[in-house]
């Protein structure tokens, strides 16, 4: 083994690294907690924990500088450190089995957090009584949907995530006979009807856009608020521009146009996740305590149907009684009894069991280690009682 490799190994198995990483993680958690006031919980999670580095933008520029290790980096190094120390330093013996189990639980906890960060998805499903949906919608992310609605049976949909729109790079997709070019993008904007004369002309040339003014707003990071993006999007065919459309999730009216002998619909909407089954809201129940507005029970009775007919049944979702189906968990989230509308939270987290398993392993490991020490201690006491030291 040459010196470089040895140094590398010594670095990753050292206890000093563990201490430094734990100290860094404490600083990270402290800074993130303080920054939650400015950014809110979602942005803080992304910036501090679901990243390799905490980035800081040089004021006045878009250049990001890494200023501190992020959660993934610290967690990743901790994981490597822990595994490396075990592989290199510890020997599996019965007397240390508790310590091993505890550390294995800790490793599983770190891996579980990483997988949750990477795989967990949260969507919502908003239904009115009688309405059927085959998709859930994102709380925070949006997408530009360009839909070929010509076929009377099907819609051919091309979706462009908001992050790609923000890039302003022209997008050409094989299913679209035109390029999509973002002329202007506002991550948060207020829309209002144009007052008439005296305002600068709109960038939009087609659809509803020319009648509307989009004013950029500062991003909001509050947990109970959301950003409403808006973009001016140009569609350009081989013979030139087809027009510039204003798109925003706030614009509910569909904007359609004809091109190449086909009919298209364009709009920005909350990001959708289509499912291989459909849910129909049959009935909402919204009980309150008598004489008050305090909610007592929210329940949604739904019909769950798969296209192949394997499932066609009624399900009841109410508080603390979610529906688990196809790797998804549907929780009763909000209810508007007056308008017979129910909102379900749809969560996919394949690794949701890992924190429970790891905590159980850590607890069991500590108990085992304690018992091993206790039995050793009792054994020693018995031995010394059986053979008391000779008195002078």
């Amino acid at each position, binding site marked *: 083994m040459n010196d470089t490799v040895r140094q590398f*190994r010594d670095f990753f198995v050292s206890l000093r690294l563990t201490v430094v990483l734990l100290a860094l993680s404490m600083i990270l958690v402290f800074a993130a907690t303080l920054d939650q006031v400015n950014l809110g919980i979602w942005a803080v999670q992304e910036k501090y924990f679901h990243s390799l580095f905490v980035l800081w933008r040089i004021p006045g520029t878009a250049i990001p500088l890494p200023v501190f290790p992020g959660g993934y980096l610290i967690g*990743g190094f901790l*994981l490597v450190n822990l*595994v490396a120390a075990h592989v290199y330093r510890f020997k599996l013996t019965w007397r240390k089995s508790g310590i091993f189990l505890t550390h294995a639980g800790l490793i599983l906890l770190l891996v579980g957090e990483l997988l949750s960060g990477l795989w967990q998805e949260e969507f919502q499903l908003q239904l009115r009584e009688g309405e059927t949906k085959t998709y859930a919608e994102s709380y925070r992310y949006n997408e530009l949907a360009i839909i070929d609605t010509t076929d009377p049976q*099907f*819609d051919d949909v091309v979706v462009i995530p908001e*992050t790609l729109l923000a890039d302003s790079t022209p997008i050409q997709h094989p299913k679209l006979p035109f390029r999509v070019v973002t002329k202007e993008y506002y991550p948060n904007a*207020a829309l209002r009807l144009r007052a008439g004369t005296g305002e600068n002309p709109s960038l939009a040339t087609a659809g509803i856009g020319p009648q509307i003014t989009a*004013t950029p707003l500062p991003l909001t990071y509050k947990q109970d608020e959301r950003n409403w993006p808006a973009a001016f999007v140009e569609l350009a065919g081989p013979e030139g521009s087809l027009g510039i459309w204003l798109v925003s999730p706030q614009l509910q009216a569909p904007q359609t146009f004809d091109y190449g002998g086909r009919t298209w619909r364009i709009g920005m909407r909350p990001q959708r996740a289509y499912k291989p089954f459909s849910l129909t809201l049959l009935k909402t129940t919204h009980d309150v305590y008598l004489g008050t507005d305090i909610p007592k029970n929210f329940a949604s009775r739904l019909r769950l149907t798969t296209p192949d007919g394997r499932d066609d049944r009624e399900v009841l979702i109410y508080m603390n009684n979610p529906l688990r189906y196809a790797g998804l968990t549907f929780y009763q989230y909000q209810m508007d009894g*007056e308008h017979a509308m129910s909102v379900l939270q749809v969560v996919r987290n394949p690794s949701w069991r890992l924190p429970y398993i790891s905590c159980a392993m850590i607890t069991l490991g500590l108990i085992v280690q304690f018992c091993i020490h206790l039995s050793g201690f009792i054994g020693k006491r018995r031995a010394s009682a059986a053979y008391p030291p000779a008195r002078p």
Partner: protein
Amino acid sequence: MRHRHALLPLVLLTLLTACREAKVESYRVPKEKPEELPPAMAAGASAPAVPGGADMAGTAVPTADGSDLTWTAPAHWKAKPAAAMRKGSFTVPGENGAEADLSITAFPGDVGGELANLNRWRGQIQLAPLSDGDLPGATTRIEQHGLTFVVVDFVNTDAAGPRRILGAIVPYNNATWFFKLSGPAALVAKEKPAFLAFLQTISAPAPSAP
């Protein structure tokens, strides 16, 4: 070479974090109706009658984020197909074919603030903008049903056809709602009591989140 095993998680970690890149996707779905528009925005929608035989028309629409303000409009106001962006829209008929327009819109945030929005309305009837100091004199604040209404009455009598705007701004649920009656000055003046009565019917639903 046991250290190589130890490096594996780091490589995996880097690879895993790199695989969340957004990309353009395409798929085919069974025909969907476009999102249902709120009742007042649907073409040709007429406001449904209130159960119980009241002679007022009731309309309720969702705000941008799904929760509602509700109101009841006077029976002689005619619900009309609203332009996009409107939460509600009514034609207020007057004598000799005169018409005023009642619009209800809602936008997230404070939409630039009270002063900017009031000055926007003033600009629409060719009135000079107000300054911050003019606000208290030009506005009336009404508290009802847990909502704060900033009510204004702007009139331009200098123009050839005098115009008037009766408006109310209501912050609600992290959005700002605008109720605006605009039209010929005489008609809007005549409708002022009906407009103020209409404002009194506006309310927020009881909170229902668990």
